[in-house]
């Protein structure tokens, strides 16, 4: 009798536990398989100048953010003051202008702040698929070698920057520094 009750109790507890776990999981919070992989290659026009071709190499070289934005995305607009702060603080931010119209995007940037170093124009979401973009805004952290080290789906927040992004950038910068010193120190 007690055994049977124990079994029933265990089964109920397991089921409730599973349901509770389901509550805690954010279904939109998918882990990106791209973290730890090199930045996917792309060839796109620059948003500002159609005759300029940008590739992933333009995003690589130092620890940098890559932000995916569009003018139709109100969350991107809300996020931009934070990006401005980062840009003023000396963190390079590159961007994909995602599924947008060039004129609209340029007008938007001309009347508001522009935190971006380089903006690749991705009107049909081609690079978007390669980068695993599925909602704007999205932000990646690239290390100096161009490896994706972090991805945030949804807007950055101050808390997130303080807790995760800025410490990561600091660490990656220290890493890059050490690597370049080792290269310089090594006999050629």
């Amino acid at each position, binding site marked *: 009798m007690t055994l*049977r009750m124990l079994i029933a109790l265990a*089964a109920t507890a397991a089921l409730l536990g599973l349901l509770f776990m389901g509550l805690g999981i954010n*279904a*939109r919070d*998918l*882990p*990106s*398989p*791209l973290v730890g992989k090199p930045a*996917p290659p792309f060839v796109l026009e620059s948003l500002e100048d159609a005759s300029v071709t940008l590739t992933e190499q333009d995003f690589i070289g130092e620890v940098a953010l890559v932000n995916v934005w569009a003018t139709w995305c109100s969350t991107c607009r809300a996020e931009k003051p934070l990006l401005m702060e980062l840009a003023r603080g000396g963190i390079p931010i590159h961007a994909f202008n995602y*599924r947008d119209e060039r004129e609209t995007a340029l007008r938007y940037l001309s009347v508001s702040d522009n935190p971006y170093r380089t903006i690749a124009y991705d009107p*049909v*979401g*081609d690079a*978007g*698929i*390669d*980068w*695993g973009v*599925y*909602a704007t805004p999205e932000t990646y952290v690239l290390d100096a070698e161009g490896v994706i080290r972090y991805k945030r789906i949804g807007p950055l927040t101050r808390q997130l920057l303080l807790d995760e992004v800025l410490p990561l950038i600091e660490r990656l910068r220290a890493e890059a520094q050490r690597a370049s010193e080792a290269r310089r120190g090594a006999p050629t």
Partner: protein
Amino acid sequence: MIPRLFCLLLAWLLPAGLAMALAIGQPLEFASEAQQRQYDTLVRELRCTVCQSETIHESNAELAADMRRRVHAMTLAGHDADAIVAFMVQRYGDYVRYRPPLQVNTWLLWASPFLLMLGGVLVWWRIVVGRRSMAERPGFTAQERAMLDRLRQADELRRS
């Protein structure tokens, strides 16, 4: 009443159908029937990661359209189904597959129907065994029977 209801229904369905047609776009061209088949299978097996519970075939989301276009392009370029699925998984994770692969983090998912069945069989078996043992339980002893008879008689006497 009925015609009005019908019109209302039509007014609802027509734009929905149009929107669907617009989202799906022009019929796609393929070099061979095998490619067409591969495309048709793949768009029903890949999940739209924005809408999550829809395949990219059903979804009206722009991302789903992008993914369909990419599946189409890759199919035309001669990539086989496995390569295309691998491509999507590389970008969006296993989540993009409607049929999850059997691997370390999904074994419980795959095993759960069998585990549940096993549980059911165990419960059923216990019930059957319990019933059998109940049937085998000895009936009343002669002494108990006599006592019951006496009780019954006393009861009848009281009633009468």
